[in-house]
């Protein structure tokens, strides 16, 4: 671990992580409610259970660094500092949304925060992150790119193509696979011949690291180290964070394909509880934080909803640059 990491992992920062993970958890919980009320339509891919990965990793990059996420990206966007109003607004299709409501749940993008893309097509984000990293390098900046993808996504061609280019050009990019053991309804071993996806780094002569995705400190540490390597010009890293999603793949999925007790076992290692314990938070402290964040979540949803819908005239401007 580098000094940078040490500095960052102070108690204050970690309390911030706790709060942010809670915010993500409650944000996602509320999405379900808003669906029931018809305020969010279509589909959505929630990330309860993954909070330590998004918060641990995103907290390891700087404002000048780039970030790409996926359709399961609410947590990462919030971790990057997107306001809940901007996130809810987007899910509601309103102009309060980060993309003015045309993107929807799968496309939380915010260029002002260097969150340069949220991809609904599996694998598509990885080459874009490589491009951002390469561009940073060619423009003489020391920015790095951080890219999230899933276990299922490690089987598509662009995963391979992106890692290969990143390695051969020594691009400053960190790939984080959130291995939540399922790609939609398929358990990893039905689609993938190995358990540890970090193994795949070997095909690119790139470091591969496995980390406990329920442990925000651990995630932060390995990502910070990889970011430091990237920034120092030593090239990309593949990090596999073992995690679990508490909900089904998407709104319509009751996730009946899971083995009995699996969810419950994972919940015993809840990332928020783990950090709360480490920080020595009392029940009361947890409860009052919970209430505070819940109030913020509720208020954000109300505020987001006040905004008008985008107009056809407005969105026509999004097709071509002026």
């Amino acid at each position: 671990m580098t000094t940078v990491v040490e500095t960052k992992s102070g108690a204050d920062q970690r309390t911030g992580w706790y709060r942010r993970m809670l915010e993500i958890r409650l944000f996602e919980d509320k999405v379900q409610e808003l669906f029931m009320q018809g305020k969010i339509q279509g589909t959505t891919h929630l990330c309860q259970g993954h909070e330590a990965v998004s918060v641990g990793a995103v907290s390891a990059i700087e404002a000048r660094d780039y970030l790409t996420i996926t359709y399961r990206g609410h947590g990462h966007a919030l971790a990057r500092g997107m306001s809940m109003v901007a996130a809810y607004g987007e899910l509601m299709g309103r102009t309060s949304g980060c993309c003015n409501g045309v993107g929807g749940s799968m496309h939380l993008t915010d260029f002002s925060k260097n969150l340069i893309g949220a991809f609904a097509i599996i694998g598509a984000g990885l080459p874009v992150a490589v491009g951002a990293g390469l561009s940073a390098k060619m423009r003489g900046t020391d920015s790095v790119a951080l890219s999230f993808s899933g276990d299922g996504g490690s089987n598509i061609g662009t995963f391979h193509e992106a890692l290969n280019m990143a390695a051969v050009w020594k691009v400053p990019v960190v790939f984080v696979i959130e291995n939540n053991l399922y790609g939609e309804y398929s358990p990893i071993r039905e689609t993938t011949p190995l358990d540890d996806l970090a193994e795949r780094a070997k095909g690119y002569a790139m470091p591969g690291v496995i980390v406990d995705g329920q442990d925000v400190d651990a995630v932060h540490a390995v990502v910070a180290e990889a970011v430091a390597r990237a920034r120092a010009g030593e090239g990309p890293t593949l990090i596999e964070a073992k995690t679990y999603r508490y909900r089904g793949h998407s709104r319509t999925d009751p996730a009946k394909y899971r083995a009995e007790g699996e969810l419950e076992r994972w919940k015993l290692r809840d990332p928020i509880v783990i950090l709360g314990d480490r920080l020595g938070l009392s029940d009361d402290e947890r409860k009052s934080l919970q209430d505070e964040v819940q109030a913020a979540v509720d208020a954000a949803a109300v505020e987001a909803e006040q905004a008008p819908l985008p107009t056809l005239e407005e969105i026509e401007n999004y097709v071509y640059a002026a």
Partner: protein
Amino acid sequence: MSTQLESKPAGVGSDAAELTYREAINAALEDELESDPAVILMGEDVATAGGVFKTNEGLSDRFGRERVRNTPICENGFVGVALGMAVTGMRPVVEIMFSDFLPTAGDAIVNELPKYRFMCGGQCEVPVTVRSIGGATGRFGTQHSATGESWYMALPGLKVATAGTPDSAYSVLRAAIRSNDPVVFFEHRGLYGRKGPVRRGDDNIAAVGDAAVLREGSDVTIVATLLMLDRALIAAEQLAENGVDAEVVELRWLRPLDTESVRRSVEKTGRLVVAEEQVHAAGWGATLISQFAMEGFEWKSRPRAVSLPDNLLIPYTPELEDTVVPSAERIADEVRAALK
């Protein structure tokens, strides 16, 4: 003039059962898996929980998880696998979960499937069916809303099919699977819950390349596919109340393209409205209209198209999605304009 159900030219008779479009797809898959052991179904999550759109309910239980096989996420790869299976004695059906992912399998679909038989001098047949599930109205956003139906109609060697009713879902899909050439078969997600009469059985397998007149009429011809077909039929009922007698043609196949059937219809009506869930550029609507223009067809009024706007993509915003995708009302309006 007749109603939608009575006017179905083939297939739907007294022994028809009411099925949803989803159930019709399921029945077609089941009947083909049953009738030929070479048929298999593969794709992402096709074998679990009936597939993501529940079209495959019961199939993996009945035929096993070898013949109904979940694949990794790798569209180009597994369409290629299907090709290898097809040229060695099997008859694979591949499910592409969203039509938007067809370009992910772009090489397999553009360069391999259609060209394979040709390049080897006719040494093999390529019986692959690619089921492509697409279409807007689901609030799935810009990367999950294409129908894609016209993308591949410029490829000799491929066949391109669509279904706009439960009965065509059943009979066209069975025909696609039985074809010894590669077929991309388009389903519309927005129709899965739609009910209609389906005559299930081996005598209801569509003829490859044939359009179907789903409603006879004398004033105007509406040609449509997929969800637009459904809306065209609704528009026709509305128009009938105002004394306008529209003929509705389901263009089931885009390749081969049944210009003949459409011509028969427009020779009767003298007017044409195409209804398409795609921009007009480079689509089947433009192809048909151009064909008639080159033949010097004499219209009673100029042909018209109801299409997606050329200057927009499908937004997530529910209200705007509904504005952008042509409604039955817009189709009816265009018909009225054609009759002015």
